[in-house]
């Protein structure tokens, strides 16, 4: 595997929910065109850390973030940065599929519309088709673009959400346990899709399934109680972990 440029770098990140110190001193460098997996027992702060990267934590009143997070060496917590602009650049897919209660077409077209990415209707149609293709769902929905997005199956809904996220041309794609609500077949489809997406984006995926991390990621970060315990090549983490806590987790002794 060749070495890629660093896309996201964080230094000494602390996150507090009120008095609860949820993320402690996390420094990590996430590469471009790579799938990075965050694993760890539940409640260890994987989602919290992921949500720092597109500043979704701003929407939680009690949440405070300290430290340095840079995308392409720009500080995203700089007062000059508008989180709305940031989120167009850093797409996010959530744990539970959450399509808008609108048509499939409108779900995907919403982002491009509000960011003014399409000059005309034909342009928008192209963007929607492209996004749906990249979400690996085009063939299933091309005949019913005006049907409601919420009428799809769970796996289809999640791929629709991925298509919606890529439609705004992001550079980073954050996924918070995207498969936890899906059955094994849908999971396999989404995993295949994630591998595809790696060509264009830097993908960060939170998962509680170690097999999934092993299957889709090149880099893995193991979190425990708010600390980043170990970060490295996925193969190394799974075959030859340095930290005893990592070893206990992947062998199933903590979790």
């Amino acid at each position, binding site marked *: 595997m060749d070495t890629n440029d660093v896309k996201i770098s964080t230094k000494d990140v602390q996150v507090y929910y009120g008095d609860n110190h949820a993320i402690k001193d996390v420094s990590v460098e996430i590469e471009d065109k790579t799938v990075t997996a965050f694993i760890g027992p539940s409640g260890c702060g994987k989602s919290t850390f992921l949500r720092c990267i597109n500043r979704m934590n701003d929407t939680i009143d009690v949440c405070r973030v300290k430290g340095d997070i840079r995308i392409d060496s720009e500080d995203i917590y700089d007062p000059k940065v508008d989180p709305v602009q940031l989120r167009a650049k850093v797409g996010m897919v*959530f744990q539970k599929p*959450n399509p808008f209660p609108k048509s499939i077409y409108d779900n995907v077209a919403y982002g491009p519309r509000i960011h003014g990415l399409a000059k005309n209707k034909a342009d928008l149609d192209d963007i929607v088709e492209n996004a749906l293709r990249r979400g690996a769902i085009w063939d299933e929905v091309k005949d019913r673009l005006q049907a409601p997005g919420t009428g799809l199956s769970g796996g289809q809904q999640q791929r629709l959400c991925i298509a919606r996220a890529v439609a705004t041309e992001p550079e980073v794609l954050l996924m918070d346990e995207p498969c936890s609500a899906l059955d094994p077949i849908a999971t396999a489809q989404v995993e295949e899709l994630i591998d595809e997406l790696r060509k264009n984006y830097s993908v960060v995926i939170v998962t509680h399934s170690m097999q999934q991390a092993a299957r889709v990621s090149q880099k893995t970060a193991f979190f425990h109680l708010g600390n980043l315990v170990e970060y490295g090549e996925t193969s190394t983490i799974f075959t030859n972990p340095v930290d005893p806590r990592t070893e206990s987790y992947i062998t199933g002794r903590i979790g």
Partner: protein
Amino acid sequence: MTDTSMTPADASKKKSSLLAQDARTRKRNAAETRFRMYGMAAIAVGLLFLVFLFASILRSGLPAFTQTVVNIEFVLTKEQFDKAESKMLKTGEYQKIFISALTEQLEASGLDVDFDNKAIQRLVGKPGGTIRSFFLENPDRIGTPVSFELAASSRVDGYLNGRITRDTLVDSRFLMATDLDLVDALKEVDVIQSAFNWNFITGTDSGVDNPGGAGLGASVIGSFFMMLVVLFLSLPIGVAASIYLEEFAPKNRWTDLIEVNISNLAAVPSIVFGILGLAVFIQFAGLPQSAPLVGGLVLTLMTLPTIIISTRASLAAVPPSIRDAALGVGASKMQSVFHHVLPLAMPGILTGTIIGLAQALGETAPLLLIGMVGYVAREYPETFAGGFTDANSAMPAQIYTWASRADPGFYEKAWGGIIILLLFLITMNAIAVVLRRRFERRW
């Protein structure tokens, strides 16, 4: 397992059969059945009250929609017209013509009843004036048969629909026992008839001694203009306040305080808003008394908490995942609210608004203090702006005014007014249901 192990004795010991209910299950099922019974009994009692309510409203109110009229057709010759016009007491002359026409009609039917000028006046007031002005306006109708429909007095009305009987009648200048013979006779020859009382719906209020001529129309207009004020003030203000509080405001002690106060305002007795309106809008701001504008402002104050509470509840019911989804693709907070949250909350907001309006429509107490109760709405407003500022009454205020008048004829009008008010309320609720259905496209 052998057949012998399936004996009941065995089953009760350890292995229970699914075919026989054990004691616990029986008890649970009995409890459930009892609970269902309570529920059905409660609903039955509720329905019974409802039926009773509607029955008594309809029974007392429907007579207000019919009116007893004296229907008579006669020909006025040119000589009669000239002769009457040359007299000093012109209307008295026309009344004589009317009486002779009446007598003729009775004789033609072979009935013989004695009556005089006074009796006619007790029955239909002074018909001479009505007849004269008709012929002055339509001189070409002189010499042709013309039929007149004259409203009978409310006492006659009361006699015909059973409110007054021969036994309860006390002779007075309004109605004598002897008049009843005349009424019966006239009814026999179809001179006295029952007609739909359009005037009750479209007319204006009459004086305290003329229940027959009283109509609700002007007060309906008064209520309409009040509701316009309420709708156009409380909906935007209420929705804007709710969106700000629910979606944008930080959660701190101040917003908590505001929240508690809004809930308290919703429970403040409406008369308090009335006295506030009197002090602020009339005495301080100098707005006119009895004006629908002031009534609307007062009712807006009263409706705002209702709308804010229901709007906030429907905003809070929109799943947070929708907000996350919108923010996740880079929508601003405002875009996420207006593009996604608000449309989903719309059915709830509309329902809350219409329920708030319906409450305001039926509210009487605050109107007492700003002078809308007791105001005799004798006229329709002349212009659209006048609809807001001209003194007027409102439906519930008019009903209250009628109910407190001495003449028993107004009692029936009050019930009739309640029927119209209820029709408006039912219509508004139906609109709420239709709007909710239309907006509720939760796929």
